């Protein structure tokens, strides 16, 4: 079963945000999880219409870390956390189980975690 979330950058301040039942949440822990690709696509179409709210919305692949959904791509995990060299900055500062799962998950260092664009080198 594939799992996805919808992310974008907030237009006004550039902050990373996640789609959460029709609104945009700053925490990945609040992101809506799509196990049906059609629902994800429908949300993406709605998000693209919000061009004065967000920039460049796209779907990201997720996988499970100890039962918790986390982005497959390392790049997306860094976006959901903040800079690894400043653990006190960004979203990671508040901690919690989802943040911990994002931190410990490994793999997926590719520069794009966009659904349908990931091409792992074989």
């Amino acid at each position, binding site marked *: 079963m594939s799992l996805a979330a919808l992310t974008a950058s907030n237009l*006004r301040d*550039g902050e990373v945000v996640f789609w959460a039942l029709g609104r945009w949440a700053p925490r990945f822990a609040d992101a809506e999880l799509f196990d049906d690709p059609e629902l994800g696509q429908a949300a993406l179409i709605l998000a693209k219409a919000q061009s004065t709210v967000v*920039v460049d919305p796209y779907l990201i692949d997720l996988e499970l870390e100890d039962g918790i959904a986390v982005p497959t791509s390392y*790049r997306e995990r860094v976006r959901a956390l903040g800079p690894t*060299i*400043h653990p006190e900055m960004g979203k990671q500062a508040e901690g919690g189980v989802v943040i911990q799962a994002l931190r410990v998950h490994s*793999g997926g*260092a*590719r*520069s794009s975690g966009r659904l349908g664009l990931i091409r792992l080198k074989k």
Partner: protein
Amino acid sequence: MYRYDAIDKSVIEDRAAEFRDQVARRLSGALTEDQFKPLRLMNGLYLQLHGYMLRVAIPYGSLSANQLRGLARIGRTHDKGYGHFTTRQNVQFNWIKLSEAPDVLDALAEVDLHAIQTSGNCIRNTTSDPCAGATAEEVDDPRVWCEAIRQWSTLHPEFGYLPRKFKIAVTASAQDRTAAKVHDIGLVLRRNREGQLGFEVMVGGGMGRTPYLGTTIRQHLPVNHLLSYLSAVLRVYNRHGRRDNIYKARIKILVAALGAEDFARQVDAEWTAMDRQAVDLPDIELARIRGAFGYVPFADLPPVSGVFEAARKADPALARFARNNVKAHKVAGYAIVNVSLKAPGEVPGYGHSEVRVTHEQNLVLPHVKLDDLAAVHAGLTAAGLAASNINLASDIIACPGLDYCALANTRAIPVAQSIARRFAEPDVAESIGELKIKISGCINACGHHHVGHIGILGVDKKGEEFFQLTLGGSGAEDASLGDVLGPAVAYDQVTPAVDALVEAYLRERRGAERFLDTYRRVGLAPFKAAVYADAH
């Protein structure tokens, strides 16, 4: 320092006002993102991993104390209290809100700074020698020529939409502190036998996925023809550069495709046909620019400072600092102080209120009295900025990498931090000697890895962060591109691999050879064996 006149000021104030209007129209929805993106990029505003990043031009790396304070204020008020100095002597803020970006441009304009042409396919900030105006090596002050280039190239209608970005470096010393040979145009100012000043013009250098060293197309261009000759080079490039393919659009590809001789012939034809007088800088304007740099009121001092000599003998830390970070000044009784930023803190106020940013991501206080050196060192120590490691293994260039950059494959800063920790012991670092390690988080090579004595390039291998090592590169006057050592190593193997390379060097080293010299003498084999010993 070059002092802005009323025209300089009005240009950047108008530009900031224009951007305020553009941002308002984007926020209201009057402009779409597709319409707005090129406008924000023209003002150095990128959208990166965690937010908007603003790249501010530091003209040829030269800042007044007031400008540095202005940058610090922006960092505190509009960012998270820090910025990154780049390998192009600029500074980047990583957490700028779009809604506040116009206020930031206003705050920059207040201290005569801006972000114009820090992005886009135009002529970017000119790189220059951070020791300009202070080193006895130079034949003229390169900043005067950089400023002439800045004024000529800013908002130049013909060169605002080149096939790709365009970077120029100017140095006037035998020792190249600008990486001139890996710029689109590298200019080396020299005197010929008759004593006349002229530029050696090198074109087609660059890094990225296809690195090249620049080729000399003119040995001695009379200085008064600089702008017309640059125009001729840019015209040939503008006409024939590969706009159809972003990977082939830099001038280095054109020069390689045509051959340097043919390229030079075309430039000469263009230059001969051109109305040079209309383009070249009139002597009076050159004199105005030279005059606008003002005069540093050097005191008449003895070449040896008793105060400093006594302090150096009494304080081994100061002695080490003087050995590694302090360089000779052209004026007796003064010194050039390199401030290593590979340690956190703030910069205190010495050095005739001038600070330079180096392409190696450090700062230089260009004019410090020898008598003041002990006090400067004490101030730097208090601020956590007295690391005595210039050009040593812990003085590493690293691009922002995956911690910030939307294009990255891997992180670069934590890799640099790990290597720096390994060589943190000052005696160890000094015993190894000059070792330039440079790290890029992707093939765009912002961290100059191609020209590192040890270059480290982040690559993606089946979804994991891996790092390809290169050896033997140099961005200095003995420029060369590094050779690939072998298969890429994993994130946690980079520091052990660098350690093994250093061990191999220490085994092979003869006399006072630097790492680079030993590598050039013995080649890859012993280094390869040291790193991949376990694998074979």
